[in-house]
């Protein structure tokens, strides 16, 4: 028995999952699954299906159900964090020398989140996690120069305040150095970032 709209992936059949059939889409019951604009309408900002995928890791992980730990080990050593899982309280304080919680502010949003930089191993992981948390937009991944689809016409640039109080672009320095010097993060609107002269050079094309 399945519920109506917004159904989750049905995991009863561990092996031959017909993944496509169970993939979440948006829309009222009876509507066609794929919209011409790729789901950007219907307020797909929340990207429920994407959230599901993001939260549970990449697609391949779903199919891994029922496989042994050895199978799971074949996936990359560092994986996308699911928010709040495993449910460890203040884990950062246990068994680790340091705890690196920094506040993350987003231009235009009234709330802050906190992330523990120690749990990530790379910029990619951090940015993916931030996208997961603030999924109403996408973050410009200038490291790979990927032009990610802008959902509402606004691109955000990840910036951080370092120990000296300067605002820098995320990705400038080696990861470990970044972790040590980052005091807080701010996802700045790309237009503002350009205005502040935070661009890195010719290979980085400005927006708007």
């Amino acid at each position: 028995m399945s519920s109506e709209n917004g159904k989750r992936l049905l995991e009863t059949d561990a092996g031959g999952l017909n993944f496509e059939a169970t993939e979440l889409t948006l829309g009222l019951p009876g509507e066609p699954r794929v919209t011409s604009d790729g789901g950007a309408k219907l307020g797909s900002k929340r990207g429920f299906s994407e959230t599901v995928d993001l939260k549970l890791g990449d697609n391949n992980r779903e199919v891994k159900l029922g496989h042994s730990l050895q199978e799971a080990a074949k996936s990359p050593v560092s994986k996308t964090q699911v928010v709040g899982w495993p449910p460890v309280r203040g884990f950062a304080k246990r068994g680790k020398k340091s705890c690196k919680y920094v506040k993350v502010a987003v231009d235009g949003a009234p709330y802050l989140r906190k992330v523990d930089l120690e749990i990530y191993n790379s910029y990619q992981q951090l940015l993916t996690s931030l996208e997961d948390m603030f999924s109403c937009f996408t973050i410009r991944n200038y490291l790979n120069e990927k032009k990610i689809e802008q959902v509402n016409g606004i691109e955000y640039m990840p910036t951080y305040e370092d120990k000296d109080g300067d605002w820098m672009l995320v990705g400038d320095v080696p990861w470990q150095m970044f972790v040590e010097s980052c005091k807080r993060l701010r996802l700045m609107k790309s237009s503002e970032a350009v205005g502040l002269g935070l661009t890195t050079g010719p290979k980085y094309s400005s927006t708007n």
Partner: protein
Amino acid sequence: MQKEMAYSFPDEVLKHVFSFIQSDKDRNAVSLVCKSWYEIERWCRRKVFIGNCYAVSPRMVIRRFPEVRSIELKGKPHFADFNLVPDGWGGYVLQWIAEMAGAYPWLGEIRLKRMVVTDESLELIAKSFKNFKVLVLFSCEGFSTDGLAAIAASCKNLRELDLRESEVDDLSGHWLAQFPETCTSLVSLNISCLGSDEVSFSALERLVDRCPNLRSLQLNRAVTLDKIANILRRAPQLVDFGTGNYAAELQPDVFSNLAGAFSSCKELKSLSGFWDVVPAYLPALYSICPRLTSLNLSYATIQSPDLIKLVSHCPRLQRLLVLDYVEDSGLEELASSCKDLQELRVFPSDPFGVEPNVSLTEQGLVAVSLGCPKLQSVLYFCRRMSNAALVTIAQNCPNLTRFRLCIIEPKTPDYLTLDPLDAGFGAIVEHCKDLRRLSLSGLLTDHVFEYIGTYGKKLEMLSVAFAGDSDLGLHHVLSGCESLRKLEIRDCPFGDKALLANAAKLETMRSLWMSSCAVSFGACKLLGQKMPKLNVEVIDETEPPDSRPESYPVDKLYIYRSVAGPRFDMPPFVWSMDEAVKILH
């Protein structure tokens, strides 16, 4: 004539009798007997426990119980511990303090859990309550050492200051020096949550020196090992002690000083702290180990052999908190040495790693279940489990009251059979008839909820993640678990049907949390409309839920019963489904 006698007990007599009745449940029952008992009882109730600060307003509490001396309040939902509740959600204590400042001049005890406490609140406490004795801030946040300084300076008869697991802004280390020289009343001081350099150690020493009744002291990580002996020698009467940093270069004189200091504490029963442990210093504890009933090593990054040695010296241990470095072998030793064990918590040393970094499996827990007949409370993080193991554990430990299992990878099946773990958890609820708290994990279908609804009659709190197939699962729980008070669910395919069909049940519970499930905005609105005694709150950090179709699922949902109506301190990302509340975001 005879009828009159029944009503002729003077109030003082009844009051005296009632003073022996301490439990809230009994007090509530007393108040229902008749109007005069209600009146008498309410005037002499001294302690109030409010499990959800939004279930009732300060004014209502004060109106009913005018002479309260002790209050306990809880704020944010439990999942706030795991970053699922955004900052700014609520749980502010200031208004409570402000109203109680006027109404309860003799308030002596405030205990708060998961609440936002500002320096302003602390300063208000400090100046409003002349007889203030106990302040417990469990998992709270929003205050700094300035607020603590106000408490220290003003509270002349402070007995307890316990900041366990709270987040404190360190502005200055000198707040401890604010305790006046005349303050000799401290019984319990827990500053373990403070960061580095937040405490003036000489002030601490002097404080410990002049408080002969100090029984419980938990230091913070900044206090180094060499300082422990000084403290212990000033407080040999300690029953409960938390070290700071337990690392230093091994030096014989430091070691023997430490060992001597520990052995002079004849009452010491409980130890914690142990950040950055150097194993060579553990034998300093051996003299007190035979008396230890509680050991919290959840910060101690020591390996199994050292843990085994330590634990084997503690035959009276009732409570052990430890990292999974203990491994199956360590737990086997525990099972053979500690027959009085009642509570075990095993935390993951590397929760975000994909590969297991230690040899801790279901076997360790099975061993403990076999060897420790008094086991009642379990919190266990591991990477694999089997139905067979769970069945064995259930059969070995029918007296379990709390069972929380976290298999680190969501939806992990039985590693032997690849089946869901329904049968295993089913055995737990079936055999453990007094089970009050249960947390599920691993691959689970609707069947496990059928078992829970059928057998979990005493279950009060249930935590569910990445489990179930359909609304039927949720329906089993809501319709079957008669004692259910708190239900928290994340990432499960539970939607509108079960929730709406069991709406009345929600009024019998403290709260329900559902995040990343399939409950539609329309259903939330309906619930808010039909159930005026429930506060139905939708949390969405991205955009208002009504900017999308009604059938669209909400991100997070928090429903709780309340006699106070919708709250007024909701941040922009929380929407009340109460009809009377205009959405003005």
